[in-house]
């Protein structure tokens, strides 16, 4: 790992300033992706700005929303009785990220800022139609994800919290890589009075995406059989040593059906 300066600001404005005055500075949330990246020398920041003393942890639940502070760990989301009651699929998703120790450190804000194409949380944000709140604005999920490892965040912009609308029903199903625990295909299905949203992670070259054909069919009829005849084109899906694009296309259908059944 290359060496770097380390700062742990205690005010959001100071953290934003530390990141904006130095374009080689990087934010550190839970570090469960970022520290391994640093070890591999894939990133060489001049300065690492630790966001852990900004008071960005915590969970607030209202009858219609769940708001999670950016520095809230996966473990705290998974174990939150309030989240389990309001959006059990979200708590379940958090409980399947990494392993016990990774969940003690990894954060929702870090995951969403990184936007790994195989991460779980992006599918929840997109399927639930949530919003990302930052130090300067609120960004709708549909505008937030802009391709693999790419988001609408500006340089130095820090996520402060994430808000999810409470759906009527929802479920997350993950076909995970048994070694890395990342999603080879993960499907988050959410049913609202206004319709059904389906988001797929782990599968596509461009990262998380909404499955329009499934959404249309399920909005008309929220049953496993509703998507029986719909196939997913493999054109833009990932092929790697773990799974071919055609296999991932197949898994999208299988995992979506499981999610509908579980919702």
């Amino acid at each position, binding site marked *: 790992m290359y*060496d770097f300066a380390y700062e742990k600001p205690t005010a959001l404005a100071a953290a934003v300033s530390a990141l904006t005055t130095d374009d080689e500075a990087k934010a*550190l949330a839970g570090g469960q992706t970022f520290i391994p990246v640093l070890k591999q020398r894939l990133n060489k920041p001049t300065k690492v700005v630790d966001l852990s003393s900004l008071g960005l942890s915590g969970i607030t639940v209202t009858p219609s929303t769940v708001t999670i502070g950016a520095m809230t760990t996966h473990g705290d989301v998974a174990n939150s009785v309030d989240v389990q009651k309001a959006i059990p699929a979200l708590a379940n998703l958090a409980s399947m990220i990494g392993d*016990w*120790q990774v969940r003690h*450190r990894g954060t929702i804000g870090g995951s969403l800022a990184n936007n790994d194409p195989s991460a779980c949380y992006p599918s929840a944000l997109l399927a639930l139609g949530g919003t990302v709140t930052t130090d300067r604005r609120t960004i709708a999920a549909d505008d937030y994800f802009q391709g693999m490892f790419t988001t609408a965040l500006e340089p130095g912009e820090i996520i402060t919290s994430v808000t999810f609308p409470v759906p009527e029903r929802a479920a997350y199903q993950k076909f995970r890589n048994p070694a890395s625990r990342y999603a080879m295909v993960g499907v988050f299905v959410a049913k609202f009075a206004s319709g059904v949203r389906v988001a797929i992670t782990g599968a596509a070259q461009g990262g998380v995406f909404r499955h329009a054909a499934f959404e249309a069919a399920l909005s008309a009829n929220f049953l496993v059989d509703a998507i029986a005849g719909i196939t997913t084109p493999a054109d833009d899906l990932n092929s790697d040593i773990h799974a071919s694009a055609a296999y991932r296309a197949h898994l999208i259908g299988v995992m979506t059906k499981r999610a509908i059944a579980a919702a």
Partner: protein
Amino acid sequence: MPSVTLTVNGKTHTVEVEGRTLLVELLREKLGLTGTHVGCDTSQCGACVVHLNGTSVKSCTTLALQADGASVVTIEGLAAADGTLHPMQEAFRENHALQCGFCTPGMVMSAIDLVMSHPQGLSESDIRHGLEGNLCRCTGYHNIVKAVAAAWPVMHGRELAPAE
């Protein structure tokens, strides 16, 4: 050079570190606590698990500076001063839950967190899933799972209720 002040196994240390110094490097190289191991160095294997403010974390994926002000417990901090083993260490010994022993410090630290965070009880399945962040290449896990189950009633001071 920045410095970090932290409590390790009840003793407070102030140590000069680099920004890039990992918690496990601080423990092993600066404090000489080599019971915490580095296995994979990629946060997969769990040989480096320690308790940071009471919860198990992978010390190879934590910066030393992130532990400033924190309380850390390592495998060296478990046994009593007179050498009496922690109930989890004793259970590992009784159940032959190790062969080469490389993964054991991390396994024990994870297992203690697992038991303490499940006061309502632990099924065999809970234990196997709870230890998913710790890899052992010798035992096939079976005796480790037995050891964790055996330690639960000792650590909680009551019998484990029958599984669902």
